[in-house]
């Protein structure tokens, strides 16, 4: 079982089976790590916001740096109109980041390596952004699909392409995160397997690869959370400030 690089993504029940109607909502290892991530986020940011000293301590600095980082990201990409959505994007960024980072600890489960989790997040963002766009601009939001300055001959084609690209947003957003996490973790597992199978003689090379990959994966874990958040900001920007 351990040799299979995909077995790390197995979801299994912890405790009894819980059923609501026809739906199985049992507590699983995925649920455990979602709770771990959210609890650690809340813990860190609660500690970081408790005391208000002029010279912040380490945890306060961490919380405030994260706050300014995300708020700068939002104001840079989506402008000042996106301020009401700050809390959501902050939560999103932190949730994805912590899930990714928890996945980097050996023997843990990576919540974001599951397409259903990332897809639910992406679909929620997609629906939310679309609703916001229609509320802000009415049917004028459909102008998003009609870029200005395009020759009339090309317009039907461009509109179709724009609509397809718009509709594929949740898929690209969710698959990007999920595939990155899954591929990275699978690769690390494969190299780890090589270390065992090649033994003390030849195992050093894949071990060094494993070490390098761990560093790379930590970078990817941060980067994908950042990309996820910044793409959300860009979609939000489209909905708030209709440029096309």
């Amino acid at each position, binding site marked *: 079982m351990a040799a*299979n*690089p*995909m*077995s790390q*993504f*197995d*979801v299994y*029940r912890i405790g009894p089976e819980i059923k609501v109607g026809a*739906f*199985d*909502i*049992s*507590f*699983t290892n*995925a*649920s455990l790590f*979602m*709770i771990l*991530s*959210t609890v650690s*986020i*809340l813990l860190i*940011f*609660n500690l*970081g*916001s*408790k005391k*208000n000293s*002029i010279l912040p301590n380490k945890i*306060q600095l961490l*919380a*405030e740096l994260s*706050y*300014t980082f995300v708020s700068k990201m939002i104001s840079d990409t989506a402008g000042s109109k996106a301020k009401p959505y*700050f*809390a*959501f994007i*902050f*939560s999103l960024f*932190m*949730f994805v980041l912590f899930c990714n980072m928890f996945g980097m600890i050996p023997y843990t489960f990576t*919540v974001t*390596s*599951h*397409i*259903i*989790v990332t897809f*639910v*997040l992406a679909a929620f963002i997609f629906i939310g952004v679309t609703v916001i766009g229609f509320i802000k601009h009415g049917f004028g939001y459909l102008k998003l699909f009609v870029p200005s300055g395009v020759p009339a001959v090309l317009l039907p084609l461009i509109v179709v392409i724009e609509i397809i690209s718009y509709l594929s947003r949740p898929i690209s957003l969710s*698959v990007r995160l*999920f*595939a990155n996490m*899954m591929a990275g973790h*699978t690769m690390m597992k*494969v190299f780890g*397997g090589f270390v065992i199978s090649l033994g003390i003689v030849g195992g050093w090379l894949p071990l060094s690869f494993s070490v390098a990959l761990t560093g790379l994966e930590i970078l990817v874990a941060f980067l994908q959370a950042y990309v996820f958040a910044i793409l959300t900001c860009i979609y939000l920007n489209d909905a708030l400030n209709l440029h096309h």
Partner: protein
Amino acid sequence: MVKKINFQSIFFSFFFIKEAFAAESGGMPQLNPEFWVSQIFWLILTFGIMYLVLSKLILPKISNNLETRKSQILENIEAAEKQREDSDAKLKEYDEIISKSKLEANSIFNQAREKAIKDISAKREVLDKQIDNEIAEAEKEIDALRKNAPNKINKIAIETSSELLQKLIGAEVNNSSISAIVDDLSKRNGDKYYGN
């Protein structure tokens, strides 16, 4: 070999998700819908609670902390600026006082010097006058002495020569004839000694 097939199934599954469902059992656990509902449920629950707590409790506190720090820093900068201005003004005042007192000291010194010079010159005048007077008196005295000197000398010469003659000749000689001779001689010699 087994691993390779696994990878292939991963990549194929991106394109043929439906086909992957059928062949899922050996492939990706992600495409097993058994726990999808559970994952969605727990995701919404945990994320929702986290969002609510963050947005209602924690993030406002952090933003408030940042705001108060910012305003406090601005206040401190303002206060520092004000204090700097104050100290600048005080420095100017101090400089003024110093230069004023320097001027004052200078003027006092000058006055004192002038006064001293005046005193000195007044005293010197007085002394000069005294000295002049004394010199004049002395000159008068000298003049008087000089005028009396030939008479006295004549008298002494007459007396000495009469005594001398008496001792030499033994006879009394008329004083008046001697004095005529002495006068005559002294007049001639006086010309030689005094240069008048």
